C-alpha cells in the first residue's frame, strides 16, 4: 500500500519536501562549513564553497581541554571545555531528576485517588504558564540569600574552618542551584505528558502484577515503567533540550565555574578573536542535543501495549 501511494505523489510534493529539508538542514550546514573556514574566508564573501578546511576554530574553542597547545594561540582565553562539562552535568542530571520525579508524580496523579487530585493536576500546568523572566528575580534572591548554609555553625562552619573563606554556601553559583530550577521548570510539562501515557496502561495489567506477587514499587518499575518508555523518551528529549539551551536563568544563577555553554558564548563573544570561533562553538553546542535526540527517539515505538489485553 505504501509503495503505490509514493508513486502517485505530485511533483510539487517533492519540491515542498526538498524545501523543508533545505530549510531545516541549510543553517546547520552553513554553520558547519563556515566553522571550518578561516576568518578571512568567512568575511571576504568570495568563494563560498571553495576554501581550505581548517580545524583552527575548533582548536581555539577547545583550547582548555586539548592535550597540545595550538600554534596559533598565545593564551587560552575561552574555557569552552569546562562550560561544556557544566552543560552536560546540568542537562543530564536535571533531565534524569525530572523524569524520575515526573513519572512517579504522574503515576500518582493518574492512579491514586486523593483529595485535591484534579486541582493539583491542573496547578502543575499553571506553574508552566509563568514566564522564566518572572521567576528570575525571586529565584535569584532566594538562591543568593535564603538557601544558604550559615557559616556560624554546622556544615558552613566546618567549611569555613577547613577550606577558609566565608564559609556560607548558597545555592546560587552551584550546579545544584541551576539543576533545581530546571527540574522545577520542566516537571509540570513532563508530568502532563506522562499522565497521558500512564492512562493508557491497562489497569488489569497492574492488578495481574499485584496478584502475581509484586509490591507497589515492583508494579511501577517492572510493569508500568517499561510500557511508558516512549513517553519517557519524548519527555527526556524535551527536558534535555530546554536545559541545554536555557540562557536566562543560567545567566543569573551561574558563576564563573558553573557557567553553561550558552552563557559562555554570550559572555565571551567579544573576547573571541573572530567569527569562526563562535561558529565552531555553536557547532559543538549543537552536537549533544542531536545525539541525545537520535538516541532517545529510538525508544519512541508506538504500540507498546499491543497484545496486553483483548478488546
Amino acid at each position, binding site marked *: 500500500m505504501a509503495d503505490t501511494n509514493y508513486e502517485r505523489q505530485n511533483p510539487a510534493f517533492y519540491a515542498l519536501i526538498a524545501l523543508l529539508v533545505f530549510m531545516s538542514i541549510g543553517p546547520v550546514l552553513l554553520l558547519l562549513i563556515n566553522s571550518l573556514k578561516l576568518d578571512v574566508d568567512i568575511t571576504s564573501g568570495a568563494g563560498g564553497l571553495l576554501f581550505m578546511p581548517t580545524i583552527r576554530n575548533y582548536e581555539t574553542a577547545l583550547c582548555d581541554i586539548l592535550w597540545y597547545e595550538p600554534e596559533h594561540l598565545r593564551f587560552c582565553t575561552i574555557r569552552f571545555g569546562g562550560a561544556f562539562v557544566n552543560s552536560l552535568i546540568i542537562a543530564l542530571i536535571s533531565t534524569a531528576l525530572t523524569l524520575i520525579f515526573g513519572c512517579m508524580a504522574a503515576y500518582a496523579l493518574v492512579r491514586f485517588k486523593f483529595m485535591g487530585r484534579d486541582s493539583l493536576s491542573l496547578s502543575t500546568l499553571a506553574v508552566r504558564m509563568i514566564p522564566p523572566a518572572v521567576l528570575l528575580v525571586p529565584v535569584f534572591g532566594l538562591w543568593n540569600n535564603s538557601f544558604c548554609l550559615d557559616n556560624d555553625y554546622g556544615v558552613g562552619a566546618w567549611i569555613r574552618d577547613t577550606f577558609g573563606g566565608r564559609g556560607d554556601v548558597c545555592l546560587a553559583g552551584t550546579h545544584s542551584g541551576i539543576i533545581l530550577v530546571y527540574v522545577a521548570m520542566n516537571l509540570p510539562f513532563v508530568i502532563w505528558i506522562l499522565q497521558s501515557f500512564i492512562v493508557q496502561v491497562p489497569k488489569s495489567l497492574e492488578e*495481574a502484577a*499485584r496478584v*502475581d*506477587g*509484586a509490591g507497589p514499587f515492583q508494579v511501577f518499575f517492572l510493569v508500568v515503567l*517499561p510500557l511508558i518508555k516512549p513517553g519517557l523518551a519524548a519527555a527526556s528529549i524535551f527536558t534535555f533540550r530546554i536545559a541545554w539551551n536555557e540562557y536566562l536563568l543560567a545567566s543569573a544563577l551561574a558563576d564563573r565555574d558553573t557557567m553553561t555553554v550558552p552563557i559562555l558564548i554570550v559572555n565571551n563573544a567579544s573576547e573571541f578573536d573572530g567569527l569562526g570561533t563562535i561558529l565552531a562553538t555553536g557547532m559543538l553546542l549543537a552536537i549533544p542535543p542531536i545525539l541525545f535526540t537520535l538516541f532517545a527517539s529510538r525508544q519512541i515505538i508506538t504500540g507498546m501495549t499491543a497484545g496486553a489485553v483483548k478488546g
Partner: protein
Amino acid sequence: MPTIRLENLVKRYGAVEVLHGIELDMAEHEFTVLVGPSGCGKSTTLRMLAGLETVSDGEIYMDDRPISGLDPKDRDIAMVFQDYALYPHMNVARNMSFSLRLQKTPQATIDKKVGEVAEMLGLSPFLGRKPGELSGGQRQRVAMGRALCRDASTFLFDEPLSNLDAKLRGQMRAELALMRQNVKKNMIYVTHDQIEAMTLADRIVVMHGGHIQQQGTPSELFKNPVNRFVAGFLGSPPMNFLEADLVEENGALHAKGDGFSIRLPNDLATRARNKAVHKATLGLRPSDLEYTPDAPVDQSLDLNVVVSEYIGAQSVLICGCGDAKVTVELKSETPIALGETLRFAVRPEGLHLFDTKTEVAL
C-alpha cells in the same frame, strides 16, 4: 488446599451497596462457578477474594484464617483475567515466570516449571514470542499458564473465555475441563455463560442483584431451582413461564391459564395447598414438552407453532399459547407445519410452580 469461606461479605461503593452479605463455603479442590447476569456482583466477589477490591463488611477465611486484610500477593491465589492482562513487553516465558522471578526462584526451577506448563498448554513453540504476536486463543492459554506456574492453592478465573469466538470457546472449555482433572486446586470461576457454568462446575452459585440465589451441583440447580430467576437463568433455551390460577377441579388442583388447564401432580398440589397459593407461574423447560397428538387435555398444552428454528438434530419451535410465547425443543424429524395448532404433552416431573408474588418455587 485450604477451604474458603465467605462470611456475610458486603461491598459498598459510597452509599450504594452492591453485595448484600454473601455467605459461601467452598470445599477443597472444588470447582465453584459464580454465575449471573452482568452487574450481579459475581466479579466483585471474585475481586474481593483476590484482594483487588476492599471488603466493606464481613470476612473471607482461608482455612479459618481471615485474609481480607492481606495484600493480593500474600493470599496464595492466582488469577486469570477476562482481558488476559499479559505483560506486553515480556515474552511468553517471562510472562509465565513473572511471579516466580519476583519470588527469586532459582533459574533452573523456573525453566523446569515453565517448560512443564508450556508443554501442558501446547505453548512450547511460542515461549520466545511477545503477546502481540499471538492469536486470541494462544494469549488465553498464556494467561492460564501464568496462573498455573504460580503453584498457588486457589485459582480465580474472571470470565476467561468471554473474549474468544464461539468455536474457540468450546475448545478452551474442554481444555479447562481436562486441566481441572489434572490440577488438583481450588478453582473459582466467574462467568455469565450458563453453559460454561453447567459444564465445568462441581458447584454452581447463581447470583442476582448482589444476593446468592441458589447454590448446588449443576443437576440440582437444573432440576430443583428455588425460584423463578434461577429457573430462567439456567438451561438453554430458557424455561417457559406461564401465568396460571390454581383451582380445584374434580378433586385435583389444576393450573388454569390462557388456553390451558393442567392437572398438577400430587406432591406439587399438596405443597401449593399448604401454602395457600392461588396465583402461580408455571415453569416448563422446552425439553419437557413432547409432541403427543393423543395426550389427555389436562396433561398437555395446545400450541400454535409460529416459528421453527432448525439447529441440526434438534429444532426449537416458538409457539403461541394464548398471549404467551412458549418454546419447545424437539427432534428435527418430527413433522411439524407452521401455523398448525398441535398438542404437546407435559412431562409431570418437568413441572415447576412459582408463587407469582414472591417468585419462590413451590
